[in-house]
């Protein structure tokens, strides 16, 4: 992980750590914090706890998103403090003394973000969607623009392509070439990876190429577009990996108190990110009991027969 982040994530980059509730690569986010990256633009539909942590650590200047919260629990304090008028200010604001620097926001809806990655991946100048009519979102974000159908049958809204410098995807498994397989919620990792200049895949398990080839329908990202494969078991904790471990909901609940208090949050970052040298140390610190408690029961899929054609 250390090498992948050092080689592929640079100051000022636009970085997308995608995964909708499922497969959020906290391990990569923590490594970016440890390596002290600065001025990143962070893109993600749901910033979740990982971007709250990264923004509190000072790695980012801008956030591109569509839903800002701690899913099922509440708010993200670090981001709110850098967004709300009572606690944050833009550079040069005469009333800004003692306030945190204002985080720049670029805001869409979920479908808008998905459309942006899709346009980025497909080389399109924009993506048209039937959303935003009669709302204040296009006023809040002038990059959301009304376009006429060239066929004269009405109006839709366009969103611009999003092409991250780096997309980071967590997955159940990949082979050494980066051919990556996922099951469970698919989110928009495929679109975000194809849209990116550089792709880092982080997996629970490295498998032989034959495992991938035995079930090609499950491959979402081909090794062709992957720059680094990192094996990092439990790298998505406290989010989850379908079939491997459940969401650590206690962590999400506990975060609610931590994120409300800037000092507590900075203390958490010291203890769980800066003072550890990587994910293995983090898992050890979590403890075997907590890790074991997150293991789900078994529910295997039936298998299919692809047939042999010679």
């Amino acid at each position, binding site marked *: 992980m250390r090498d992948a982040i050092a080689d592929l994530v640079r100051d000022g980059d636009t970085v997308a750590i995608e995964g*909708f509730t499922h497969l959020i690569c906290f391990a990569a986010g923590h490594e970016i914090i440890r390596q002290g990256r600065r001025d990143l633009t962070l893109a993600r539909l749901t910033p979740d706890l990982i971007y709250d942590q990264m923004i509190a650590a000072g790695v980012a200047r801008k956030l591109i998103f569509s839903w800002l919260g701690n*899913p099922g629990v509440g708010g993200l304090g670090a981001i709110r403090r850098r*967004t709300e008028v009572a606690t944050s200010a833009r550079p040069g604001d005469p009333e800004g003394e003692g306030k945190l620097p204002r985080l720049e926001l670029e805001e869409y809806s979920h479908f808008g973000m*998905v459309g942006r990655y899709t346009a980025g991946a497909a080389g399109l100048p924009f993506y048209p969607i039937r959303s935003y009519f009669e*709302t204040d979102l296009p006023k809040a974000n002038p990059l959301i623009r009304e376009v006429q159908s060239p066929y004269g049958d009405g109006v839709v809204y366009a969103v611009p392509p999003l092409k991250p410098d780096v997309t980071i995807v967590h997955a159940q498994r990949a082979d050494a070439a980066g051919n990556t397989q996922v099951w469970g*919620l698919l*989110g928009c990792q495929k679109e975000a990876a194809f849209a990116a200049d550089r792709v880092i895949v982080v997996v629970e398990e490295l498998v032989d190429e034959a495992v991938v080839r035995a079930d090609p329908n499950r491959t979402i990202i081909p090794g062709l577009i992957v720059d680094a494969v990192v094996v990092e078991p439990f790298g998505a904790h406290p989010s989850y990996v379908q079939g491997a471990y459940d969401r650590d909901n206690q962590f999400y609940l506990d975060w609610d108190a931590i994120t409300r208090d800037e000092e507590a949050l900075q203390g958490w970052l010291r203890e769980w990110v800066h003072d550890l040298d990587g994910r293995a140390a983090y898992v050890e610190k979590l403890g075997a009991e907590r890790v074991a408690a997150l293991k789900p029961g078994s529910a295997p899929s039936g298998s299919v027969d692809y047939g042999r054609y010679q």
Partner: protein
Amino acid sequence: MSGAAFSKSEMMIVAAARELAGQRVCFVGVGLPNIAVNLAQRTVAPELELVYEAGVFGARPARLPLSIGDPTIVTGATAVTSMYELFSFYLQGGLIDVGFLGAAQIDRFGNINTTVIGDYADPATRLPGSGGACEIAINARQVFVIMRQSRRSFVDQIDFRTSAGNLGGAADSERIRREQGWIGRGPSVVVTDLAIWHFDESGEMRVDSLHPGVSIDDVRAATGWQPRVSAELATTPEPTADELRLIREELDPGGAYTG
């Protein structure tokens, strides 16, 4: 009738679930809609297809999903889709009967704010934003809303329009929907911890049913405009023992939604 004691939140969730009787495909929003829809699937609408924006059609959650991206919505579901497919083909393709949303602020015409309190550029309170709500409100055939009501949430003017309701009223809304070819007809019911509201012919919310123990003055005190009241104002039937058992023992034993 159970005769058992119940909370305002439990009454709200039960009343919201009952509104789904007879519906087929429901897009489940973040927060309170999640528990209401899961209760409906266990009671009045066993055939209800649950659609989650995370990319699931036909979820059969074995536990109440902790969030709308919980692994329990995947195991045993009819289909897992990419978010692109979900929003493009299921939602924009017109397959959603009910979009079930929550809200931070709502106005008399059912327009919703989940973005900011105060000025957008310099907000007093930063709220989550749209998520999928903005496109659900336009593309689901009808919209149900569940939210706690107070003068802070039921307001004369919302601070930001995140999701379109009946815009400036029924005439305005019907004209714009027709001109722009929206699939959705807009909001049809708002269930709160005090009452059930439907929308009258002018497109404005009207109190149709008060929850047990709630007076119309309680509702007026918690509404930021002078509310319209049905001539046949009803009392919402109390939660049954079975509905309460499902909420307390199966869906929300920790009291996350009802505490």
